[in-house]
């Protein structure tokens, strides 16, 4: 009798990305020209092979995901891996974020001799880790994906080996990340001891039948949620966010600030909704505390920042607070609002960090807020794009960010938590201040030099324009994306 052939089709995109990540790594190792350039520290030699291969891989993975992703739910690897509507949507967004990150970063990396094969290989491994997390239906798969993502990111942060700041950031990230992983494993072990299974769907069944020891459940939950908070960057587990965003090369910050949030959202959904739904009453309260703290700390601390990357880092914390508000309502409307929010956030964050990367030229970073003074006089189009993104992040109509906040607030009010909605809008008001300050710097202040900012990289400029105008267009016609998120969640939770 032959052993049963495993059905691998649901995991086809993951397999492709894995193979290609290895190929990209190997090509670099055997490319003599590249090795010579690396040895001599020569600047500006484009690694076309790695760049093109990465883009092709992500596009191909997108094609596979789009074609294999049916409306139904498929399992692979004995139920450890799930491919459902939510996974497809989140993966497509992840590829999109990866593609945008690669295109936005190309010039930046080339200028700083960072455009090495490792960057592309690590980026692909990180994407793979996210994909595995998104498709996890088993605690082990979840952990596997999480670690693959995290380890790739630690290395990416330290990509600029000779920068003390970057290496320090990488160390901090690694130590704190390892601690969070430890907490997660500890929590998982408690849940395993309690339910006797690592499979998320099975765990939900067991928990629904009632558990003997509520204390173990509560402790397991606390540890797991702490890890969730860390991965999302939600207060009070947010300490790493500003330092890592600030310390990492901007091109890496761009990546860290975008796609991993999708995976973190999947992490929350798989773990809390698929696996721990019966304990909703417990985690709801913890998430509420985290959400309010994140909104408060993120928005208040962002006001005091003078560095654009740090400011955006704190703003991320506040955005994650909003995301948690959507999740904690505990119904399909709330989950789809959170899904919509995270997608909107990733689009906005890509644009904002993309512009920061784009405005940085060889030998000059556009990191400090003062660098944006009078941008309207020097590069009106880029200033307009940044203006759109800032106002969108502030949650003003008619931009995408408003509808993201709207759907979340609607879910929160619908769940009868009107006071939470009032708290959220009050902190949004605080948030509006620092986003408006960027607009103020760009439009009201006079530039320190009148020299026009000529930025190379037509492809990045084009994509940034699409990104910025997309935020406006999705704000004027929000229906398609909103409906897509709602449909996806309804399918995934059926």
């Amino acid at each position, binding site marked *: 009798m032959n052993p049963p052939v495993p059905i691998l089709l649901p995991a086809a995109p993951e397999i492709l990305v894995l193979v290609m990540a290895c190929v990209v790594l190997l090509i670099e190792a055997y490319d003599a020209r590249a090795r010579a350039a690396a040895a001599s520290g020569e600047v500006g030699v484009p690694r076309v092979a790695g760049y093109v291969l990465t883009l092709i891989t992500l596009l191909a993975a997108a094609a596979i995901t789009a074609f294999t992703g049916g409306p139904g739910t498929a399992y692979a690897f004995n139920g450890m891996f799930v491919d459902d509507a939510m996974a497809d949507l989140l993966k497509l967004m992840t590829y999109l974020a990866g593609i945008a990150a690669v295109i936005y970063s190309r010039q930046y990396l080339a200028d700083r001799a960072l455009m090495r094969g490792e960057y592309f290989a690590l980026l692909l491994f990180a994407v793979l880790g996210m994909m595995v997390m998104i498709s996890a239906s088993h605690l082990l798969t979840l952990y596997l994906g999480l670690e693959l993502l995290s380890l790739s990111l630690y290395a990416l942060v330290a990509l600029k080996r000779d920068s003390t700041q970057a290496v320090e950031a990488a160390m901090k990230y690694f130590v704190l990340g390892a601690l969070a992983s430890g907490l997660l494993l500890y929590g998982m072990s408690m849940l395993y001891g309690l339910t006797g299974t690592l499979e998320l769907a099975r765990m939900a069944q067991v928990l629904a039948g009632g558990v003997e020891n509520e204390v173990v459940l509560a402790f397991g939950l606390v540890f797991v949620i702490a890890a969730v908070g860390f991965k999302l960057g939600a207060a009070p587990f947010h300490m790493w966010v500003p330092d890592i965003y600030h310390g990492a090369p901007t091109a890496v910050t761009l990546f860290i600030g975008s796609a991993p949030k999708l995976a973190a959202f999947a992490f929350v959904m798989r773990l809390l909704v698929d696996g721990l739904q019966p304990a909703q009453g417990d985690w709801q309260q913890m998430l509420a505390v985290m959400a309010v703290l994140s909104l408060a700390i993120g928005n208040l601390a962002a006001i005091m920042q003078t560095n654009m990357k740090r400011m955006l880092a704190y703003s991320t914390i506040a955005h994650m607070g909003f995301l948690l508000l959507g999740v904690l309502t505990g119904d399909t409307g709330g989950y789809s609002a959170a899904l919509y929010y995270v997608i909107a956030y990733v689009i906005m964050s890509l644009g904002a960090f993309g512009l920061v990367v784009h405005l940085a030229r060889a030998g000059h970073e556009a990191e400090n807020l003062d660098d944006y003074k009078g941008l309207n006089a020097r590069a009106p189009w880029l200033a307009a794009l940044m203006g759109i993104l800032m106002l969108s992040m502030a949650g*003003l109509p008619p931009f995408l960010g*408003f509808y993201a906040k709207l759907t979340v607030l609607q879910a929160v*009010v619908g769940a009868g938590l009107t006071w939470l909605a*009032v708290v959220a*809008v009050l902190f949004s*008001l605080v948030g509006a201040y620092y986003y408006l300050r960027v607009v*103020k710097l760009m*439009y009201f202040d006079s530039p320190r030099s009148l020299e026009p900012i000529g930025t190379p990289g037509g492809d990045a400029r084009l994509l940034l324009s699409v990104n910025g105008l997309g935020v406006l267009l999705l704000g004027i016609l*929000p*229906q398609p994306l909103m409906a897509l998120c709602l449909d996806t969640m309804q399918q995934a939770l059926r």
Partner: protein
Amino acid sequence: MLEGFPILSLTIWVPIVAGILVLALGGDDRRADGTRSLALIGALLGFVVAIPLWTGFDASTPQMQFVERTAWIAAFNIHYYLGVDGISMPFILLNSLTTVLVVLAGWLVIQHKVAQYMAAFLIQSGLLNGVFAALDGILFYVFFEAMLIPLYLIIGMWGGPNRVYAAIKFFLYTLLGSLLMLVAVLYLFFQAGGSFDILSWHKLPLTMAAQLMLFVAFFFAFAVKVPMWPVHTWLPDAHVEAPTGGSVVLAAITLKVGAYGFLRFTLPIVPDAAHELAWLMVALSLVAIVYIGLVALVQADMKKLIAYSSIAHMGFVTLGFFLFNTLGIEGGLVQMISHGFVSAALFLCVGVLYDRLHSRQIADYGGVVNTMPRFAALFMLFAMANAGLPGTSGFVGEFMVILGTIEVSFWWALAAGLTLIFGAAYTLWMYKRVVFGPVANPQVAALQDIDGREFLVLGLLAVCVLALGIYPLPLTEVMHASVAHLLNHVAHSKLVY
């Protein structure tokens, strides 16, 4: 009448598209004349497409007219739902006309980033029309908040020395109000069983507790915009720092949005709470009329004086609204339109002086009549209208509101009547110090009288002020049916226990 022709959409989108075109085609200040002409064409087109609203309006019905309704965000039952009644229609015309004037007024004054300036006003105009036409809660909110963005940029980019402070204060102040309203709108959505239709909210029975909460949320949103005492402090700053065009739009239109909100949201949606808290609203209005009138008296800065006078005049509007009688509400509406003309004209007059002398201080002027007689004559008319002289538009609204107040309480009417004294005092005293007397200094002696363009702008407004003052019937006729319907609606409690 072209049945089903999307006139309201045109009034919203023609200026916005024109603004985007101006932005796209006129990036260069060296081709500023072309940019200005393009902006003027856009503004005129915006006004022309709004005219059918007046000519095709059926004044005999309180129903919404020119209705357009299509699904916008079907997933959340949000509609692109537009329509006007006798209350909102005049404001769309007022706004479209003001945009033309503002473009003309900024013609030569703005030499720096002309395209962005003109585009901001055109886009702002479209968004404001959207506010007055929207009948879907979210659509209203989108326009209501989006209109802050162009105004923020206008104040911050072309304003006076303290413009950044004023712009941010203006923005955050008004945002605070609107965010609370957003929660109220979402709450109503669930109470109404999943509908953002404002007209269906009018019929929605609510408990007193819910009505009071909603009242407070709407109060913050609209009172800040009006602005009512004590949340008025952003206005003097914004007015003083804004460029002339910004002040004009702010005074003539943006303030009206707040008052309009009271009529469209507060009174019909929470009538019982409105009755319950009417004493508070009346008290705040009277404070605005009396106290702010006194504050206006001591201002040394002309723009600040007119800003405070705006607050006092808007106090009249809110006073009229919360009397719950026809004279009060119609008087308030007439006052809004009249104030739109008069305050716009006064800010333009100050702008005319400021462009020449670069000072807004009353003390820097004196004897202007000797060098600018044509200007002095027009300025006189507007000053009189601001003081409420019979025969000007300023008189009609104030008189109606005072009559309406007497129906309710003699003492309130007496307090409100004080405005006629204070208004005359601060306006005419300022006028006297600026225009009459001996020529104050050599700079005043060198002043040039207004040119054809300035004369056209002020002359147009003068015609409007006189026409409305002598024969206000066409305007009150248009709003009569809608106001009667509103009063009838508000008179019936929709309380549930």
